[in-house]
């Protein structure tokens, strides 16, 4: 079983406009994918279909060879953070982590000890602050969402624009975390970003989307950043 995720003939349109159209795409176990593309390229829609949040017009997303729309097994090993809609905002971060951990049969003590590794990442702004998640800043909410997906020990991790709202120090920490996940723990990561520097640094494979299609599929090398910059500057 080499392919972690396989996409076949996936199509989605709104009001006659095609938003996503991917004939075939395979993602191997342990690959780290960077998803880039301008606004409206279809990145978030693709994420949502991979997470079975939107029903595709045609085609299917297979996770470990099973269609995500028909089974729920993928939820055991796939975790994600797309937006604040994934957070239960009237809970405190601690309650939320405990709840999420409980879904994977971890008790509170286990979760608390796992959260210790995020001390630096949280920078003292998340835990024991006596705030509900809804009262946190957007960047701190992102941190909660990312940490919540990591403590579930995923095999597949999907993050939509994780770098967008967080401060530079946290960005660097997050990059290190993602790198380590894919290189040392063989976790499949799919990260979208508008920051070309970040994705080329973190990911070994870049998918470039335009108008719902994947128009470039590049293995990252020293020229990738230049190549991408060229593509985006020509567009503008």
């Amino acid at each position: 079983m080499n392919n972690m995720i396989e996409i076949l003939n996936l199509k989605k349109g709104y009001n006659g406009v095609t938003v996503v159209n991917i004939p075939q795409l395979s993602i191997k176990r342990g690959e780290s994918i960077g998803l880039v593309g301008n606004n409206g390229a279809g990145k978030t829609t693709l994420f949502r279909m991979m997470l079975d949040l939107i029903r595709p017009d045609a085609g299917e997303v297979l996770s470990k060879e099973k269609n995500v729309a028909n089974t729920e097994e993928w939820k055991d090993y796939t975790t994600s953070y797309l937006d604040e809609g994934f957070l239960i905002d009237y809970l405190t971060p601690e309650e939320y982590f405990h709840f999420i951990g409980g879904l994977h049969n971890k008790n509170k003590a286990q979760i608390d000890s796992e959260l210790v590794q995020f001390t630096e990442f949280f920078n003292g702004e998340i835990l024991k602050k006596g705030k509900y998640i809804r009262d946190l800043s957007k960047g701190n909410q992102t941190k909660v969402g990312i940490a919540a997906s990591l403590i579930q020990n995923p095999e597949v991790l999907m993050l939509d624009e994780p770098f967008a709202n967080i401060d530079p120090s946290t960005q660097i920490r997050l990059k290190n975390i993602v790198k380590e996940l894919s290189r040392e723990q063989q976790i499949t990561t799919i990260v979208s970003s508008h920051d070309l520097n970040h994705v080329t640094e973190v990911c070994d494979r870049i998918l470039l989307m335009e108008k719902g299609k994947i128009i470039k599929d590049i293995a990252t090398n020293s020229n990738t950043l230049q190549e991408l910059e060229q593509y985006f500057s020509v567009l503008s």
Partner: protein
Amino acid sequence: MTLTFLIHQSKAFWRSKNTGKSIAMRIVMGILILYLLLNVLVVAFFIDRILEKTYPNQEIIPSFNSLLMYYFLIDLLMRFQMQELPTLAVRPYLHLRINKNQLINYLSLTSLGTAFNLSPLLLTLPFLIKVILPEHGPATFSAYILAITGMTLTNHFFSLWLKRKVNLNAMWMLVFFGTLILLVSLDFYFNLFSISALSAQIFKSLINTPLYCLIFLLLAGIIYLINYRYLKNNLYLEELHSADNSHKSSTEIPFLGKFGMAGDLAANELKLILRNKRPRSVTMMSLFFMFYGLIFYNRPDFSVYPIIFCGMFMTGIFIINYGQFMFSWQSAHFDGILVSKIKTKDFFRAKFLLFTMFSTISFLLTIPYVYFGWRVLAIHFIMLIWNLGVNTLLILFFANRNFRRIDLSKGSAFNWEGVGASQWILSLPLLLGPFIIFLPFNLLDYPEAGIVTIGLIGLLFIVTRAYWVNKLIEQFQEKRYTIAEGFRNE
């Protein structure tokens, strides 16, 4: 500038994502308000007769005068409970080159458009025309109108000011209610002074010297200025937006821990109810329904129908009131629920857990009604079973068809967000169900058999619940994309 604001607001209304539905809602709401105002008008028209009947030994005008102040006290209390603050709409304008004065004028002006400001005049005008005008002439008549308008405006701006104060510091609420309780107890228990005598005195002098009405207008002007200045000094986002900065602690509900995953989910939903304004006020309102029976049971010859009706409402009020908006309560994090490792079965089991918990509490609270006979309590219990068996399934059946997002932070009084066709259709089987079963038995003169049948059917559905829940889950799997999409639309 105020005009531009108004144009923007009308655009916001017409261009909102669910405009079509909300227009329908507004029409329904408009009809409802019209109906209420019509009722007020009818009462107003006969107010002189009513006064005559209630206070046969007094002249009409003094008794009318003595009641005016009470009316405005109650009016103030109602406003405090139900009036909404028109605040968030100014948010996108705060950083622009617009005078604060203009913003505040806009806020004050638009706040005036509520039924609360219409009803005092509607209620008194017929009386004024019928009684005051012929007896004391046009000068006094206009003095009354001006005084009542002044009092209305005073109440209006005072309640807005107070609400903003309370938003920042809940102490003000205590002060307000403390003062009210003090006044009322001084009046009724200690007889130290009398609001009605004061009221009669004030309006008597108004009859003697119509120019006194200017005092009321002055009062309204002063309170307007206080509100104005307060807004001007506090027109900042964090202060308009009632941010509660107290320390939030993580809580556990050990009792629910026994129910595994479903218990955890129910605990989360309990926190949802306790920590968000709208579900909290919906649940609080359910508590008031516990007095529902008093209205019907107080009569000497009440039949079985009201007991069935009240029993269903009192034991099932949470299922009905809170359940009608399922799963909208969770609309803000519905995507999160779908992608996490939550079994749909547990998701549904959690709802039943919550329903059972609240309905049982409601039933326990209705036990004092045993005062009206054991029959009442027995029927309440049967209706509890009916609620748990039938109405839970009914509510969840409609929850699968509800795609409307709800903002948890808004109040629930007169809040129509999230209300759609499904709530109206839902109310039909909900209200009629038990009666359709009961009616034939009652006509054949076997009311007991009818009640027992209701209980048996309820029990049947409790026993076969697993089967129905599986059906619901199948539908949920089918509809979840539509539900999630609806919930994403703000």
